[in-house]
């Protein structure tokens, strides 16, 4: 039987820097970020596309890194939570989450923040109802939802509804 090649060379642009990796074909983007690149800000929650904790931006769009094969990201741009504050200055969404106490245990928070950054770019912060609907892919088992909505509303420049 012919031995098949089960490794792959990938070049990712992660938070603006080119990173070259040689990986097993099965490695997800989530595992590549955490285990190969030591970017542990992206969290592994359900690891099955049900919780949103692993949300990152791929070519500027929010996706689930646990259901993305690293091999499919060759030559593409990945933005993680670490990329939001490259010089130590927090992103406005990060500041708003602190101001509004938008987390308790914090495990889902980086996914919530990445999703919120994308939501604002998508123009989906028109009302609290719209924010809730378009944040529905990010679960928070502590139930910090009201404060997460408040943080996003704040960055969107709307007052209390």
């Amino acid at each position: 039987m012919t031995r098949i090649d089960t490794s792959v060379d990938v070049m990712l642009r992660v938070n603006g820097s080119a990173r070259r990796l040689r990986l097993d074909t099965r490695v997800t983007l989530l595992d590549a970020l955490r285990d190969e690149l030591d970017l542990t800000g992206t969290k592994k929650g359900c690891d099955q596309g049900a919780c949103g904790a692993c949300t990152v931006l791929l070519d500027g769009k929010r996706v689930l890194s646990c259901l993305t094969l690293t091999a499919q990201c060759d030559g593409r741009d990945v933005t993680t939570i670490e990329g939001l504050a490259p010089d130590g200055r927090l992103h406005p969404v990060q500041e708003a989450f602190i101001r509004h106490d938008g987390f308790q245990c914090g495990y889902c928070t980086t996914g919530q923040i990445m999703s919120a950054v994308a939501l604002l770019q998508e123009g989906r912060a028109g009302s609290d109802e719209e924010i809730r609907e378009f944040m529905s892919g990010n679960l928070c088992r502590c139930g910090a939802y009201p404060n997460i909505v408040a943080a996003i509303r704040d960055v969107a420049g709307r007052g209390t509804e």
Partner: protein
Amino acid sequence: MRPFEYVSADDPAAAVALVSADPRAEYLAGGTTELDLVLKDGVLEPGRLVDITRMPLREITRADDTLQIGALVTMNELAADPTVSERLPLVREALLASASPQLRNMATIGGNLLQRTRCRYFRDVSVPACNKRTPGSGCAAVRGPARMHAILGAGEHCIALHASDLCVPLVALDTLVDIQGVDGSRSVPLTRFYVLPGQRPDIENVLRHGDLITRIRIPLLPVGTRSGYVKVRDRASYEFALTSAAAALSIADGTIVRARLALGGVGTVPWRAREAERLLRGAPATGRTFQAAAQAALGDPFTVAGTAFKVELAERTIVRALQTVSGVPS
């Protein structure tokens, strides 16, 4: 999880050649079903994944009264298309009620047609009895706890649900599926694309190994048609349907002139409700008509203890959809 080879294909012909030549090769697009079943659940064990996401099948074009959608267009891209908003609101509503924003950025239209069932027995390889996973092994769902399962097109061999929201309006609209295979190209109506489980639940559609969906074509609704999608689920968002209905009606002077109706959350395949459509056409647009159509739509359901509630819920969902679309109160 077994090792697999990864190959990226540049165009449909190359992709078809790569998969056709290898019985253990499978296509990889958005990955939201495929990678879940390969990497996480271990239900699928391909020897080679052929990545098709770099192929040029990402265009949405309009030709006369048909919308042509490349198989690699994402769910969010289709939901944002102006023609979909203007002429196919039921498609837009079904897309935005699907999955989550993240998954809609990943999942493709071609992949949505081929998404696998969410039946927990199918997805749990420690359950021996699943005719869809292991033909002839039986059906654990028929005898075990069931809820998110089918009641139409179902039987003792399989009650696995086709969980797509998008495919519900697509079957209602007589969408065509363009397929490229080893022997050339062909088109199949989506209403004849899926195969009922019968004795062989492992056979889900008319595709042969290596066949690739390249495009779907949706005939636009006539101007003035009212349409919509109603989805009922266990939580407000990010959840599969318990029941759903896609409806399109043209009403003149209180009489229904044209009617299209399809159901989700209840069928082993996306369910076109033709008998209900016949009842609706030519009938007065009233609550009584809608109720009669809803009862006809459910026909002769196959229920188990956990899914019996779906009959009444589906009828009510249909009535709600027809009321919402027509503007006629109960």
